[in-house]
């Protein structure tokens, strides 16, 4: 203690050397490196062990022989299909909610309640969404729809529709927050100019505000896709299939192939999960696990990259707006 004090006082005249500074400097740098190191380690391991599994057959074939052989094409297809359905549901809903919050709601009680709800929704564990999906979508909405429409067991069972709906609820906060931010960056003077020309509020939002917020909204949409695409828990009970080598596709009018939202589906992250936990010989399936993980990560990475490119593109384009 005495030593430290004297050091501190001598610091005025001597070259400054403070242990606390040096230590904190080191620690801050060290902690900052941890996530980078962790990411690098994970990526390297996955690439090293997974790239061997990636073959043309792996990417285009269905699993076979107790899922020890063949490929993961149904999982890739299922992941893309469910993500597409998810964004088709989540984007209009999320954008509408954000428009309401920024353009219509005052800053009163209702606004604050909705805001708080959105923030809390973002913090709910994903398994809770899964249970919510079963309870709300399948048992409540689905069963009641079947009862009313007399459709037997069409809606009241796990299928891609409800899995996508559950994922849509999960990513809703991402879209709402991103869209709100995008709408708020559109200068008020732009709205004023439009309104003063005799545009209604909706005409102004549609023609002036949304086009200028497009970049931010698309970025939010893509981020929400990459968030939703990797989730397992929400789809666990709501539509995911353990093994379903055929694709969830129907032929509309007999000849237009279309994703069948009432079918179950295989999915990449769920496939990794069952390969790791349910397989008879988990060690033998390790290459498949790594290969599937590599495909999933590459897909997510690609989406994030697209989001970044979008943002750069639109920022450049909008950079010249005078406020």
């Amino acid at each position, binding site marked *: 203690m005495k030593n430290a004090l004297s050091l501190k006082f001598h610091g005025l005249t001597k070259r400054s050397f403070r242990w606390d500074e040096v230590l904190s400097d080191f620690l801050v740098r060290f902690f900052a490196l941890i996530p980078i190191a962790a990411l690098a380690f994970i990526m390297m391991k996955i690439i090293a062990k997974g790239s061997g599994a990636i073959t043309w057959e792996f990417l285009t074939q269905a699993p076979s022989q107790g899922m020890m052989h063949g490929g993961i094409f149904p999982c890739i297809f299922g992941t893309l299909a469910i993500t597409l359905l998810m964004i088709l549901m989540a984007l209009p809903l999320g954008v509408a909610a954000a428009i309401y919050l920024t353009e219509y709601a*005052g*800053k009163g009680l209702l606004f604050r309640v909705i805001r708080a709800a959105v923030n809390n929704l973002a913090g709910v564990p994903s398994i809770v969404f899964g249970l919510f999906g079963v309870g709300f979508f399948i048992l409540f909405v689905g069963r009641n729809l079947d009862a009313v429409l007399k459709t037997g067991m069409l809606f009241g069972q796990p299928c891609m529709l409800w899995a996508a709906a559950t994922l849509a609820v999960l990513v809703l906060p991402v879209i709402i927050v991103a869209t709100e931010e995008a709408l708020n960056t559109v*200068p008020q*003077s*732009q*709205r*004023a*100019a*439009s*309104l*003063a*020309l*005799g*545009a*209604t509020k909706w*005409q102004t939002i549609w*023609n*002036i505000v949304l086009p*200028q917020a497009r970049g931010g909204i698309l970025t939010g949409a893509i981020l929400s896709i990459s968030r939703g695409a990797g989730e397992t828990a929400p789809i666990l009970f709501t539509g995911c299939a353990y093994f379903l080598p055929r694709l969830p596709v129907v032929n509309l009018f007999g000849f237009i192939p279309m994703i069948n939202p009432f079918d179950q589906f295989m999915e990449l992250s769920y496939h990794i999960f069952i390969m790791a936990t349910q397989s008879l010989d988990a060690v033998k399936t390790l290459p498949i696990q790594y290969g599937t993980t590599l495909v999933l990560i590459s897909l997510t990475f690609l989406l994030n990259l697209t989001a970044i490119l979008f943002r750069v593109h639109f920022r450049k*384009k*909008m950079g*010249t*707006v*005078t*406020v």
Partner: protein
Amino acid sequence: MEIKILNSGKTLRVNQDQDLSSNTTKILVRDLEMFYGPVRALHGIDMEIKEKAVTALIGPSGCGKSTFLRTLNRMNDTIPGARIHGTVLIDDVNIYSPEVNVAVLRRMVGMVFQKQNPFPKSIFDNIAYGPRLHGVIDKAVLEHIVEESLKKAALWNEVKDRLQTGALELSGGQQQRLCIARVLAVNPEIILMDEPASALDPLSTAKIEELIYELRKNYTIVIVTHNMQQAARVSDFTAYFYMGSLVEFGLTKDVFTNPLKKETEDYITGRFG
């Protein structure tokens, strides 16, 4: 004509003498009060704005000029907590009565803002925005409107060869004239301008002033300015606002040479504000 401003020694060019007494009243404001929440921003304003003349609103900043201007096209409606009492009659219609269509009103009463605010679209699309909103889709008609509006706003010659380029590539002064053209394209009868030249260089300012002088032949113009010379140069009538009240209102040449109130005189001669 040149006038001497009171005893300040400054001289100003003022609009040529014209008989404005025959002009009919376009806007009649009676006992207008305006509140931002609990705060009263305008106190019992009475004013008669003549058709096809330029009325300038002057006064120190924060005195309510912009607030008053926005009551004339109901842009205050967009401000949360804004309330209004009293009447504003345009062509004898109370614009605050419930059956008035605000969108139609704002088309009739155009507005040019302090800071030029073109849309990040092409020059053509900026001008065509208003007409398109109101149902014009024929390309030839739109082209005609765009050309006419740009000509009236004295911008045609500068941009006629590049109508498809972005409006944001124009200079500040050109952008402001584009905003004026955008307003003219919806065929208004009244044009409100809130310090339209305050962000521009002297040359662009002169162009805008010339333009205002041209436009007054066909439009009723109400302009806010904090520039006394500008008010004297471009306006037929001048209204002096102070702390939310209309202190003095009359022909510009009278207000500048022979104000009725001591406060007006102090403000105009620069002893205050």
